[in-house]
């Protein structure tokens, strides 16, 4: 993709002024970006750039402009994945203006970035964000003096509360006006590397213009950390917080899937079926069970993803997520993960999809991939429904809860073992030093939480829809052809028979194999599909399974269900988040092989021990 295809060449020319936003992590850069662009942001795929960047076109004082939100980075010369992305972007795509977002409280060190941008030769406006916090910490900043010294406009703002924001934007507009006829510029990294920036450079830039108090006030953060980072109580508190978030997603999010289901059912019954009944029956079948099923599956995730990201945005913006990572890191580093991986793993118990999307908080790609590899082993709520059905049909009521609990334990253990194994390979070896900033606690604003949830949702819909609809159509073909065939006579059923040499050793009959093929779309489909497969009402299916499937085989079926891919939406998300079809295939193969091996070990072991 590195040659100059026509599409790429066009991107080099800015038809409207392009403004890039850069800054360190935790400076409120994205919050400012959201404030500027509102809900108009979308995800742009820039050729040659390995991660997707958000961009938005908005009118600024009557002028059409394009904003690009670059990943938060610590250093323009840095070596991490994100830092390379920013460097690649600034070298490949010309910009008309750079907005540098700086945390005003930490200007003593963050002034490095404005100085570096100056060396890159890029026109810039500096926004000292979190002016309210700096004031609280007793820091005074003379923006006039700084501006004169750096030769670029400097503004004290608060992206959160909007303070100083109108003036800062007016200044951006004025800069664009002044540069109206000047061509956009590429960053000159040669010049930056040729300059040696020392501590004295930073100090002399700030001297006189920024005054820190002699004795910094004891902050709320220090007081809170005494409890929240406590060596003994820290972890239990963290688990309590996670359980609470999990509880919210569980009690509100899961029923919401039913509400959406009710809406999509209504549309199907009242609109689609009456209209389609005018056409041939195969068309009705195809549109409803092929396409509409896919659309409805995607739709059922909408409230869940919104809610999850509302919660995650609140936890993340509060500053607690980095502390959670600190607390869990003690244990997670032993298997090649870090604390944040565990947070996402727990989130996966609600639903794997948002948990996969949540791995974006990790900066290191190998670590992120490893985490994405193990999240699908989390026992999500849809699988829970399958297990409850099978357990109720096959096991005596007294054993039910124990059997179910065993799946939760296996889910954790399976994920940890997989992480321990794969972290040894080079692709998943986290090579980034574990150095994590612990930002002060902040109260998240509703506006920010809302924008975040909404943005993530749009991204999910954008990326997953086609994939899932195509997948549902494929399964529809498998299970509806040849025409007039039912159950094991369909192509899917034949596939189930064909797979018997593989599935028989783990105790799974062709009927259940077909259910697993259905389950590839979503685990919600498994139970419903069983009545189609057995061609009997759902009440009878439970009875049929109870008489034909032994407890050992049923447990093996559940094990397989637990460890093979949870649903097509998860597969689509893995591909979207890793931006690699190869990794998606790898993750699929790993989960299938893993599921088979575990089920095989269990089933054969059970047979050896004399269970039938």
């Amino acid at each position: 993709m590195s040659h100059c295809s026509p599409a790429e060449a066009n991107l080099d020319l800015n038809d409207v002024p392009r403004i890039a936003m850069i800054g360190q992590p935790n400076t409120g850069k994205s919050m400012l970006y959201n404030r500027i662009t509102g809900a108009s942001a979308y995800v742009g795929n820039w050729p040659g750039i390995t991660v997707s960047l958000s961009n938005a076109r908005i009118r600024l004082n009557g002028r059409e402009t394009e904003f690009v939100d670059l990943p938060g980075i610590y250093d323009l010369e840095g070596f991490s994945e994100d830092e390379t992305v920013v460097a690649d972007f600034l070298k490949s795509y010309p910009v008309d203006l750079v907005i540098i977002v700086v945390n005003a409280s930490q200007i003593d060190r963050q002034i490095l970035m404005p100085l570096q941008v100056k060396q890159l030769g890029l026109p810039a406006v500096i926004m000292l964000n979190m002016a309210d916090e700096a004031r609280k910490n007793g820091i005074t900043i003379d923006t006039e003096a700084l501006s004169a010294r750096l030769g670029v406009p400097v503004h004290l703002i608060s992206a959160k509360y909007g303070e100083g924001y109108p003036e800062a934007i007016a200044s951006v507009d004025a800069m664009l006006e002044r540069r109206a006829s000047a061509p956009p510029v590429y960053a000159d990294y040669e010049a930056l590397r040729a300059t040696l920036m020392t501590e004295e450079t930073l100090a002399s830039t700030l001297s006189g213009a920024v005054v820190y108090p002699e004795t910094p006030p004891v902050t709320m953060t220090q007081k809170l950390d005494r409890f929240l980072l406590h060596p003994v109580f820290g972890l239990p508190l963290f688990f309590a917080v996670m359980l609470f978030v999990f509880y919210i997603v569980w009690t509100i999010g899961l029923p919401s899937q039913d509400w959406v289901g009710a809406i999509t059912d209504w549309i199907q019954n009242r609109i689609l079926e009456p209209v389609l009944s005018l056409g041939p029956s195969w068309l009705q079948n195809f549109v409803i069970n092929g396409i509409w099923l896919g659309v409805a599956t995607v739709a059922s995730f909408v409230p869940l993803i919104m809610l999850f990201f509302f919660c995650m945005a609140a936890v993340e913006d509060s500053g607690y997520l980095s502390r959670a990572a600190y607390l869990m890191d003690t244990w997670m580093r032993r298997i090649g993960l870090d604390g944040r991986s565990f947070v996402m793993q727990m989130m996966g118990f609600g639903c794997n999809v948002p948990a996969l999307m949540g791995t974006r908080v990790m900066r290191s790609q190998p670590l992120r991939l490893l985490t994405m590899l193990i999240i699908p082993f989390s026992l999500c709520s849809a699988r829970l429904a399958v297990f409850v059905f099978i357990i109720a049909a096959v096991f005596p009521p007294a054993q039910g809860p124990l059997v179910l609990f065993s799946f939760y334990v296996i889910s954790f253990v399976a994920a940890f073992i997989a992480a321990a194994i794969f972290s040894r390979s080079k692709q998943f070896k986290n090579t980034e030093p574990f150095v994590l900033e612990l930002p002060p606690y902040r109260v998240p604003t509703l506006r920010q939480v809302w924008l975040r949830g909404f943005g993530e949702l749009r991204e999910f819909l954008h990326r997953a829809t086609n994939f899932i609809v195509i997948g549902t159509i494929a399964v529809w073909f498998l299970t509806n052809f040849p025409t007039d065939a039912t159950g094991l006579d369909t192509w899917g059923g034949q596939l189930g028979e064909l797979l018997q040499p593989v599935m028989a050793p783990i105790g799974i009959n062709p009927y259940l194999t077909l259910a697993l093929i259905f389950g590839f779309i979503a685990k919600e489909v498994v139970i419903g599909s069983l009545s189609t497969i057995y061609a009997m009402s759902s009440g009878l299916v439970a009875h049929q399974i109870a008489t034909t499937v032994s407890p050992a085989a049923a447990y093996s079926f559940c094990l397989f269900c637990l460890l093979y891919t949870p649903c097509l939406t998860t597969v689509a998300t893995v591909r979207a988040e890793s931006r690699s079809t190869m990794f998606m295939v790898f993750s699929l193969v790993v989960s299938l092989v893993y599921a088979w091996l575990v089920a095989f070990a269990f089933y054969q072991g059970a047979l050896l021990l004399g269970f039938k």
Partner: protein
Amino acid sequence: MNDPVIDTALEGRIVSLESLQPGESGIVEIVEAGQFENGLSVRLRALGLSSTHQVSMVRRGWFGGPLVVRAGKATEIAIRRTEAELVKVRKV
């Protein structure tokens, strides 16, 4: 073995950041590359942890967990012990 840094270390004036106790502070002298090449020192510089800056130990995690240190004026950083080992400070 005429490395001045190591010589000073032998005299006991320069210690690794890892060895500081909560409440103690030091001035960063050098960040060794270790397995991270320049990655660690560049990252730490951007976080305000570089030569001439004061760093103080805030808390040490139990069971070999990461350390929390305060760098410069207003930045708290969690850092793994293996990484903190590479940061050499002159105790103050």
